[in-house]
């Protein structure tokens, strides 16, 4: 198996969010700004990479019938680790009391555990492949997820607030709808449509 191909497939061709429609809850819930989307994406990548590595190295010792529960325990442990780390080090409010990144992501951090991407990769890839290949697969899929969240977050922040990552590009308030819930659905709908067009183009060439 080609490692480079494993790594890049997560971005465009098999992008977990925009093509496979996995992990939609955190995608919509944490993409109200570019930084939130990116943080969520990276937190998920962390869990994905480590659980892939651990699962691929222990899977041959695990009896088939308790496979899923064991994987869930491994994943949930790494999620808890991320939760504590973020609570400790990404928990500083802004100077006007903008909530910290940890507070903004809120319930979505423990919910990484039910993100279908993580268990999906464990079951479909890590349990059947070697440690290094699983690491690359986790990294690729995780970064693909982070990429989609960052894109959606940037689009929403730009349209809704006129800025990306806090840098103001457009004066004024922007279209506020895009930072509120309806805008999340609309922006994602259009982004998926664009991705389809792009994949059709790529397939033709």
């Amino acid at each position, binding site marked *: 198996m080609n490692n480079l191909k494993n790594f890049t497939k997560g971005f465009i061709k098999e992008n977990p969010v925009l093509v496979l*429609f*996995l992990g939609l809850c955190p995608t919509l*819930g944490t993409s109200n700004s570019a930084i939130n989307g990116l943080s969520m994406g990276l937190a998920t990548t962390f869990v994905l990479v480590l659980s892939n590595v651990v699962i691929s190295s222990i899977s041959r010792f695990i009896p088939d019938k308790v496979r899923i529960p064991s994987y869930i325990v491994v994943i949930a442990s790494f999620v808890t680790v991320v*939760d504590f780390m973020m609570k400790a080090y990404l928990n500083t409010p802004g100077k006007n009391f903008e909530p910290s990144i940890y507070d903004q992501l809120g319930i979505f951090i*423990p919910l990484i555990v039910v*993100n279908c991407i993580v268990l999906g990769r464990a079951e479909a890839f890590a349990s059947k492949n070697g440690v290094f290949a699983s690491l690359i697969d986790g990294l690729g899929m995780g970064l693909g997820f982070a990429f989609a969240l960052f894109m959606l977050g940037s689009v929403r922040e730009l349209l809704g607030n006129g800025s990306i990552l806090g840098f103001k590009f457009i004066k004024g308030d922007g279209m506020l709808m895009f930072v509120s*819930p309806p805008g999340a659905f*609309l922006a994602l*709908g*259009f982004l998926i449509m664009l991705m389809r067009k792009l994949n059709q183009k790529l397939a033709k060439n």
Partner: protein
Amino acid sequence: MDYILIIISAVFVNNIVMTQFLGICPFIGVSNKVDTSMGMAGAVMFVMVIATMVTYLLQQYILEWLGIPFMQTVVFILVIAALVQLVEIILKKVSPAMYQALGIFLPLITTNCTILGVAILAVQKEYNLMESVVYAFSNAAGFGLALITFAGIREQLDLVNIPKSMKGVPIAFIIAGLLAMAFMGFAGIVK
């Protein structure tokens, strides 16, 4: 805390799907037909109330007692997974008719983030047992409301001519966006 406040807030104002973004996968996945979405809503309600009750008791009486509240995520997800299996087995034996209606949705529920989400939120909001149960029930009702409304719209959508690249999921998201806008109108009714 007023129970009516919890109910109205969870069903309309802070609707779990339209404003909290939990349970999006089944919301997009099983909303093609009204009757399947009713089945899903029923199964979610059933499991959510039981799961919230069990996890609440676990948190209060076992985890706190053992001094290991940090195992919360691990324990909750395992308990929910086991509970779903248990419900499936019991339902099969006790009420085959109900199993017929809800059975196929049960395996899908373990990875439905509304269940774990509501269980954790009920603990975070420091509700007591009765409030947690009411909270779970009304969130499930809110999920059902959004899902069934959405399915009703999508059934009509099959008959409409839409651009090829918008078919299926993209147009579903656009519709969901419009529905979310309608739900925003509920904000402010809890004072």
